């Protein structure tokens, strides 16, 4: 076949000039050395990895090397890296990027990551891979540097947007790509319209809730690989996920996705030691919880009211401050409050005021003192976070807050403060993603999210590669509350905490529960009696267990029949 051959004429032109000028001519030793270098740097084969010999101080794990090889050799440089949390997806991405840079196939690179990870990515690329990645902080950086790390929120905004679209990127890397599962969002549209010669999408949870999510993710990478939108939804939507189709889909997805599981890596992981800490309400706390449980904002029934009633109950398990904050918001939102509504609120405010202590916070202080080491506390609520900060200070315990809303610099700074100066980091849910805290191995779940995947992400912040200690997880739950129900009836039954639950997302997908959180709200909120709720929860947990056994059974069958 006819191939386009180009040669550079610059050398020839300058050479003729040197002949005219009679020099200057190079030193023979240097000349020979230049040839020797070129022979060393020439890439002898299309296959294989060059990067490892350029990175002698990096000790990649076998599964990371294999992933890099797969992407370069079989996936043509477009892949979803979907290892479970903590297996080192960044290392894989770095290896692949380095490989392409060494081979001269990639020069301009755009790395899009959550704001909290920008500095860390740039640091890792520089120190571990000698890739001169630069943090985007001023608009001129886009033009003047080849490898840029930025948050997607910055990149998609003007004036950056126009500049970004004018660059010819050879490789785009997007971290936490599951955030692009919804094709209706602006971020998705932005990622879709970027020119993707080579592209890596990193996510620990390629499917969180719906099977469509994987379609959108793959279509971002390789449009058409899973068919077009209408065909895909015709095939999979509403029909559950019948095994055969599922199998076919899986195979197709696996040609563009690498998913290593902890269990398969052969790495010795430190253990997770889980302890449930049941806390008893004081009478005044109990009174608040009971009043909240009785409370119906208005007389309407339906998901909305169930949802807010449950939210309040969950908040009452966390702190009175959280309850108060939500009540105030309800009051503000209601433009024409009835007298009845206001009376109900006043009654609740009075109950809030009567609470004179937070039993969980007391327990936490006791525990933190006993641990006498670094601790992370997760809570779902801002108000609780603020309260805890104040409360710990009263007891002479140093703490730093952490939230998703923090600017990048502040996040780094907080992490640094925690590592060097403070004993406790108090993080809200949104702050859970994107920070790596393997220097800490005690984690308190002050309250529990109603989505197991989010829990896994919390734990993943500390239980990851580089963690040398066993990780201790303390789950706080208040006795006889919705919280205890969720913990005892669901999370403990499916061994959520001990097990390495990388497969949980698959399982949930198989069960076709489109949104586990909504489902749980249904179960807990709309059951007429505790008995009914228990039965429903039991059903759910045995479904999950069953799906799990099926999966394990299959695996055994597969290994037994090579």
């Amino acid at each position, binding site marked *: *076949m006819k*191939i*386009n*051959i*180009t*040669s*550079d004429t610059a*050398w*020839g032109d*300058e*050479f*003729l000039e*040197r*002949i005219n000028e009679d020099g*200057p*001519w*190079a*030193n*023979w*030793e*240097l*000349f*020979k*050395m*230049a*040839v*020797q*270098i*070129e*022979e*060393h*740097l020439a*890439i*002898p*084969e*299309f296959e294989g990895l060059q990067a490892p*010999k*350029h990175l*002698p101080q990096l000790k990649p794990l076998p599964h990371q090397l294999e992933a890099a090889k797969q992407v*370069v050799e079989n996936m*043509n*440089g*477009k892949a979803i890296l979907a290892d479970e949390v903590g297996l080192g997806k960044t290392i894989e991405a770095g290896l692949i990027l380095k490989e392409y840079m060494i081979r*001269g*196939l990639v020069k301009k690179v755009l790395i899009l990551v959550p704001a909290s990870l920008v500095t860390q990515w740039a640091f890792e690329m520089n120190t571990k891979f*000698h890739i*001169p990645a630069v943090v985007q902080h001023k608009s001129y950086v886009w033009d003047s540097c080849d490898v840029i790390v930025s948050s997607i929120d910055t990149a998609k905004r003007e004036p950056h947007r126009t500049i970004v679209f004018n660059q010819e990127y050879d490789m785009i890397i997007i971290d936490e790509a599951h955030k692009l599962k919804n094709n209706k969002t602006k971020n998705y549209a932005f990622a879709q*319209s970027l*020119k*993707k*010669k*080579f592209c890596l999408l990193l996510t620990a949870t390629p499917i969180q809730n719906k099977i469509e999510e994987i379609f959108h993710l793959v*279509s971002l990478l*390789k*449009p*058409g*690989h899973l*068919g*077009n939108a*209408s065909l895909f939804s015709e095939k999979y939507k509403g029909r559950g996920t019948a095994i055969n189709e599922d199998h076919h889909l899986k195979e197709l997805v696996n040609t563009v996705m690498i998913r290593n599981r902890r269990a398969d890596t052969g790495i010795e992981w430190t253990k997770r030691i889980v302890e449930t800490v049941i806390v008893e309400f004081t009478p005044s706390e109990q009174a608040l919880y009971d009043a909240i449980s009785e409370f119906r904002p208005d007389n309407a029934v339906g998901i909305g009211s169930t949802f807010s009633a449950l939210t309040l109950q969950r908040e009452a398990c966390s702190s009175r401050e959280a309850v108060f904050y939500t009540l105030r918001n309800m009051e503000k939102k209601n433009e024409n409050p009835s007298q009845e509504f206001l009376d109900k609120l006043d009654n609740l405010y009075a109950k809030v005021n009567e609470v004179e202590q937070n039993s969980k916070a007391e327990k936490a202080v006791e525990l933190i003192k006993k641990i006498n080491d670094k601790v992370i506390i997760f809570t779902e609520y801002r108000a609780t976070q603020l309260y805890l900060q104040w409360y710990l200070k009263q007891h002479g315990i140093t703490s730093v807050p952490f939230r998703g809303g923090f600017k990048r610099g502040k996040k780094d700074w907080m992490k640094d403060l925690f590592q060097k100066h403070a004993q406790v980091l108090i993080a809200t849910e949104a702050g859970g993603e994107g920070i790596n805290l393997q220097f800490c191995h005690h984690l308190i779940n002050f309250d529990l999210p109603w989505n197991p995947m989010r829990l896994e992400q919390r734990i993943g912040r500390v239980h990851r590669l580089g963690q040398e200690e066993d990780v201790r997880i303390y789950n706080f739950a208040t006795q006889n509350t919705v919280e205890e129900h969720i913990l005892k009836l669901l999370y403990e039954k499916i061994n959520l905490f001990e097990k390495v639950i990388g497969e949980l997302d698959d399982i949930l997908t198989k069960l076709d529960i489109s949104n586990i959180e909504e489902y749980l709200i249904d179960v807990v909120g709309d059951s007429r009696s505790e008995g009914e709720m228990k039965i429903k929860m039991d059903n759910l947990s045995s479904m999950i267990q069953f799906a799990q056994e099926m999966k394990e059974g299959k695996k055994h069958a597969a290994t037994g029949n090579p």
Partner: protein
Amino acid sequence: MQQQEIHDFLIKYFQSNNCEIVENNSGYFVVQLTIEMDKELMNRPFYWHYLEKTGGEPNPMRVTMITDQMKTPEDLKGENIHFGSPRLHQIFESTKRLASFIRLFENIKPFSGGQYPLFPWLCQNVKVSYKCDRKKDVFISVGLNLITGEILENFHNRILNLHVTPKIPDFSYTLSPLIMPSSGLNRLDTYIRRTFEGDDHSWAEEAVKRWDNDLQLLEHFYEEMEEKNETYFTEKEALRSQYEPKINISVVNGGLFYLTEKAI
């Protein structure tokens, strides 16, 4: 490249550039840079600019480079150099830049007292890169006799063992080329192109297959869209830049070698 090779390479590099090696141990060495080499490597233009403006005493750096941590005293401060480290690659680039063009004469002892003629050869060391979504390089060295038009491959290795000198030796004289250097360059370019056109290019065929495959998927994805949007064309263009097979010829270095008739 092994650490020992790197060590030897660096020593040779600095010596060839007239830098004094102050200390040379098996795991590390200390080099006193010249002003030129400081400017070449240390990346401190402001310092040199300032010095030139104020007329101060130039103070080029003294640098310690560690090539084997194990053989180095623990408290020694220096730069760790290994294959892939930015410093080594900077020096690689510097070497190539400083050694792009050469002119040398073969130096032999005259056996009968008479003068002997030297034949001009035009040499090019070339890297040929096969590129699609993958990449491979082939290094070749070619030489063209500017009198006879003869072309020899593996030219660099053939002259490695000759005794050469930058100045024309006393008992020799150079023959004027019949082929002008500029047309010599063209001949070598044509020669290299022909050589590589005839090579096995199944790699390119495979790349085109992958390209076609992805194109079909793309068409399918946008099938229902009657008026294709910009994203479609961006994706299409991305596939071209990802897969299109190309061969790129780049000259590493080369020059004129004046050699005796029987030299190679």
